[in-house]
C-alpha cells in the first residue's frame, strides 16, 4: 500500500509538470502569462506564496513519509506499546514561531501590493472610463470624450486607464486575467480600479460574479493598441455621423428597418446617453457577436431573430417587434457597415 502511495505521489508530480510544460492556458486569457501591471503584481505574489507554502508542504511530507516508513506496525512487534509522550515545549515552540516568520515574509509584500493596486490618486490626469455591468453585457463610456462602446474596450498600451465601475442591475465582476485581477461591479457604489496593458493585444475579459443564467456568456474584450493608434481611434469615434446613409440597397433597407422596428429605443449609434442595450457605434468592428460567437453575418441574424438561443435570460428577448429572416439579413448588412475606424482588433494583432 505504501508503494501505491509513493507511485501516486510521483504521478501527481509528473502530472503537474506535464501541465506546466503543455502551457499555462490560452494566451491573453490566462493569469499565468501576465501582460499588464495588475496581473504582474498578482503573479509575483502567487509565486512568492507558492514557494513559501511548498517549503512548508515539503517539511510536512518529509515528516509524514518518515512516520509511515519507520513507525508502521512490524512483524514480531505487534504488541509493542510505545512510550506515552505528553509533549515537548521546544518542538512546539519551533513549529509555532517558524510559521509566523514565514507568514510575515508573505504578509509584508502582500500589504504593499494591496495599497499599490488600490491607489487611484492618478485618475484625475488619466484616461477614465465609466464601466457599467448589465445582464449580460458591458457598457463603456469614455469619460469626457463623448465616446461610448459596448463589449469591446479600447485602451492605449503603457498607461494606466482608470475604470469607474457600477452595475445597472445585479452584482457583476470585471476580470481580464491577463492584464489585471478582478473587481466587483456593485449596484450601489462606484468602484475604481486601474488597468495597464504592457503590449498590444486583444485580452479576454470575463464576468466573475454569478449574475444569472447567462453569467458564463458575459465575455468582453479589452483591445490594447499603441497610444498613437488609440488617438486615431478616439478621433474616428468622435467624428461618427450616426445619420450617415448606408451603402448598398439591402443595407439601406436595413437602416430603415432599424428605425421602423424601434431598435433605436435601446441601441444608440454615435455618442448618446442611451444604454438600455449595447451601443452599436462600431458594431462592424466587434470582435465577436454577443461577446461569445464568431463575428459572422449568420450569427448576427440568429441573434436578431432569436437572442434567447444565444444568451438565455437576456433583456432583448420579447422586447422588440418580430423580425423576419429577410429583414434580419438587411439589418445585419447595415450593422456590419458600422466601421467608423481603421483601428480595430486587427490593429492590436488579433
Amino acid at each position: 500500500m505504501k508503494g501505491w502511495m509513493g507511485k501516486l505521489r510521483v504521478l501527481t508530480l509528473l502530472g503537474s509538470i506535464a501541465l506546466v510544460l503543455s502551457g499555462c492556458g490560452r494566451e491573453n486569457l490566462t493569469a499565468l502569462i501576465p501582460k499588464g501591471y495588475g496581473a504582474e503584481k498578482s503573479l509575483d505574489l502567487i509565486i512568492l506564496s507558492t514557494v513559501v507554502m511548498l517549503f512548508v508542504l515539503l517539511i510536512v511530507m518529509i515528516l509524514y513519509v518518515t512516520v509511515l516508513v519507520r513507525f508502521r506496525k512490524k512483524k514480531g512487534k505487534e504488541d509493542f506499546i510505545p512510550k506515552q509522550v505528553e509533549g515537548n515545549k521546544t518542538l512546539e515552540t519551533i513549529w509555532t514561531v517558524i510559521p509566523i516568520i514565514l507568514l510575515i515574509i508573505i504578509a509584508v509584500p502582500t500589504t504593499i501590493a494591496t495599497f499599490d493596486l488600490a491607489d487611484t490618486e492618478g485618475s484625475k490626469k488619466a484616461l477614465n472610463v465609466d464601466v457599467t455591468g448589465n445582464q449580460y453585457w458591458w457598457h463603456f463610456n469614455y469619460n469626457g470624450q463623448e465616446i461610448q462602446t459596448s463589449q469591446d474596450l479600447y485602451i492605449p498600451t503603457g498607461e494606466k486607464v482608470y475604470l469607474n465601475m457600477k452595475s445597472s442591475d445585479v452584482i457583476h465582476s470585471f476580470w481580464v486575467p491577463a492584464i489585471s485581477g478582478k473587481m466587483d461591479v456593485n449596484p450601489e457604489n462606484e468602484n475604481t480600479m486601474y488597468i495597464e496593458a504592457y503590449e498590444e493585444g486583444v485580452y479576454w475579459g470575463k464576468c466573475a460574479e454569478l449574475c444569472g443564467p447567462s453569467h458564463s456568456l458575459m465575455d468582453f474584450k479589452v483591445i490594447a493598441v499603441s497610444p498613437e493608434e488609440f488617438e486615431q481611434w478616439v478621433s474616428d469615434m468622435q467624428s461618427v455621423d450616426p445619420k450617415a446613409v448606408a451603402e448598398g440597397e439591402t443595407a439601406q433597407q436595413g437602416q430603415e428597418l432599424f428605425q421602423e422596428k424601434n431598435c433605436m429605443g435601446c441601441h444608440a449609434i454615435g455618442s448618446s446617453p442611451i444604454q438600455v442595450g449595447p451601443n452599436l457605434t462600431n458594431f462592424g468592428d466587434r470582435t465577436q457577436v454577443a461577446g461569445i460567437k464568431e463575428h459572422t453575418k449568420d450569427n448576427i441574424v440568429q441573434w436578431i431573430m432569436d437572442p434567447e438561443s444565444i444568451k438565455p435570460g437576456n433583456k432583448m428577448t420579447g422586447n422588440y417587434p418580430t423580425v423576419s429572416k429577410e429583414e434580419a439579413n438587411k439589418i445585419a448588412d447595415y450593422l456590419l457597415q458600422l466601421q467608423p475606424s481603421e483601428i480595430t482588433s486587427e490593429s492590436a494583432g488579433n
Partner: protein
Amino acid sequence: MSVAATQKRGFGSVLWDYVTTVDHKKIAHLYLFGGGLFFLIGGIEAMLIRIQLAKPDNDFLSAGLYNEMITMHGTTMIFLAAMPLIFALMNAVLPLQIGARDVAFPYLNSLGFWLFMFGGILLNCSWFLGGAPDAGWTAYAPLSTTSPGHGVDFYVMGLQIAGAGTLIGGINFLVTVVNMRAPGMTYMRMPLFTWASFIASILILFAFPALTVGLFLLMFDRMFGTAFFDVSLGGNTIIWEHIFWIFGHPEVYILILPLFGVFSDVFSTFAKKRLFGYTAMVFATMLIAFLGFMVWAHHMFTVGLGPVANSIFSIATMAIAVPTGIKIFNWLATLWGGNITINSAMLWSLAFIPTFTIGGMTGVMVATVAADYQYHDTYFVIAHFHYVIVGGTIFGIFAALHYWWPKIFGRVLREGLGKLTFWTFFIGFHLTFFIQHFLGLMGMPRRYWVFHSGDGLDLGNLISTIGAFFMAFGVIVFIINVILTARDEKAPADPWDGRTLEWATASPPAHYNFKQTPLVRGLDPLWIEKSEGKGKMTPAEPLGEIHMPNNSFLPFLFSLGLFVAGFGFIYQTDNKAWLAVLIGGMAFSLGTMVVRSMKDDLGYHISKEELEREAD
C-alpha cells in the same frame, strides 16, 4: 442499517420508535440517514455539474437548470449533508465519551433533528414546484431578491427551519458538555473529539443567529415588500454579503473542527500513543474558532472595501495558519514513535494530512489579497475549498464512520471494501480538484455553465470530470459495504483497543449507555485502566435506578407544523388564501408547544433488579 438489530419487530413499530425517539444513539441513526440521503442527492447534483463541464459548449443542462444545480449542490452539501453527518457523530459518540447517559435535553435533540429534516425536505420540494433556488448557495442580493419564481423562497424557508434545528442542536451539546460529564471527567481530560465538538457548538451558537437574521431580511424583501437589499429604494446589497459571511466563515470551522477531533482520536488510538501536545491541541482549536470570527471579509476582497480593510482581514486570515500548523505537527508527533496500524479509518485519517495541508497552503495563498484578485471566484477557490471541506470534513466523516461504526451499529465495516472505497475516492478526489487550481488561474471563473472551445480549458475539465466518477464509485462501494455489513456478526465492545470511554461500553450500548457511571482518572480513561491491568472502568456509583426520558411524538409534529407554514409563507405572495396555511401551520406548532408545557412528562425509571438481570 440498524434494522438488523431490531429484525424481530415489525417495520411499523421500528418506524414509530424512530419517529418518537429521544435517545441520542437513535437520533444519531436518524441524522446519519438524513445526512446520508442528502449527501447522495448533493453528490448526484455534483455529477450532473461535472457532466455538463466535461466538454466545451456542452448543452447537457440548460443555463437556468445549471444555476439551480450549483446552488442546490452547495446548499445541500453544507447544510443538509455535512452538518447533519457531524451531528450524527456528535450524537453517537459525545455523550459516551464523557460518560453521560444522554444529552442534556433529549427532547430538544429530537426537535433539532426533525427541524433539520423538514427544512431539508422543504428546500428540496422546490425541484418539483417550479424550480430550485438559482442564486448560488451564497444567495447574493440583488440576484437573490430579484430571482423569478419561488426557488429562492424555498431556500429562505428551508434554511430558516433547518437552521433553527442546528442552533438547537448546538446549544444542546454545549449544555451537555458543561453539565453531564462523569465524575473525574474534567475539561482537560475530555477526548479531542468532545473538545472540538464543544468548541464547534460555541461557534454554532454565535454564527447561526447571523444567518437567521440575514434570512429574515431576505424573506421580508422577497415576501413582504421591504427593501433591505433594494438599492433603488435606499437598500444596500453589500450588507447581505457581510451578514452571510459573518455566519459563513465560522460555518467553515463548524464543519472542520469536530473532524479535527476525530483525527486526533483515531491517530492516538491506532498509533497506540497518547495525543502529543494535548493542551496545545485544545488551545489551538479555541484559537482557530476565535480567529474564525475575525476573517469573514476575506470572502469579499474584490468587493471594494479598500486596502486598509483588505490588509487587516488578509493578515488575520494568515494568522489562522499558525494554530492549524500546530495541529498538523502535533498529529505527526503523535504518530512519531508509535506502533501504527493502518486500516480503513486510519487510511482516511492519514490521507487527510497531505490533502488538508495542500488546502491550508492554498488557504494562505487566497488570503494574499493582491493575489486573490486573480483567484477570487475562480476554479482556484473551488479547488481550495474542496481540498479543505472534502479533504477535511468528508475524509473525517469517512474516518469516523469506519472507526465508530461498531459503536453506532454494532458491526465492523469490512476492511477490503473500506480500502476500495478509500482508494477510489482518494484518487478520484485529487484527479477532480488538483487540476482545478490551474483551471482557475487559466481564466475559468466559478459557476460557469459552459466554457468555450477556444479558452484552453478543455483537457483540465475533462480530467476533473473523470475524477468525479471515481469519487462516485467510491461512495457506491461504501453503500454496498454498509448493506453487506448489516448481516455480519456482532462487534465486540472494544474492537480497536480503544482509549476513551465510548469503548468501555457495549457495541452498540444499551439505551442507558452505562449501567454505572464510570469514574474517570485521567486523559484516555480506558487506556489508564488497561495499562494498570484492570481493563475496565471503576464505577463512580453503586448500581441503582436509572431515570430515563419518555419518547415523544411532539418534536415531529412541531416541525411538521413549521413545514406546512413554510408553504404558506412562500405562496401567500401569489394568493392571500395561502395565509390560512401559514397561520394554520404556525398555530399547529404553537399547539404542540402548549401540549408540551401543560403535560407533566416525568420520564420513567429502570429498576435496579432489571439492570442486574442484564448482562454486562
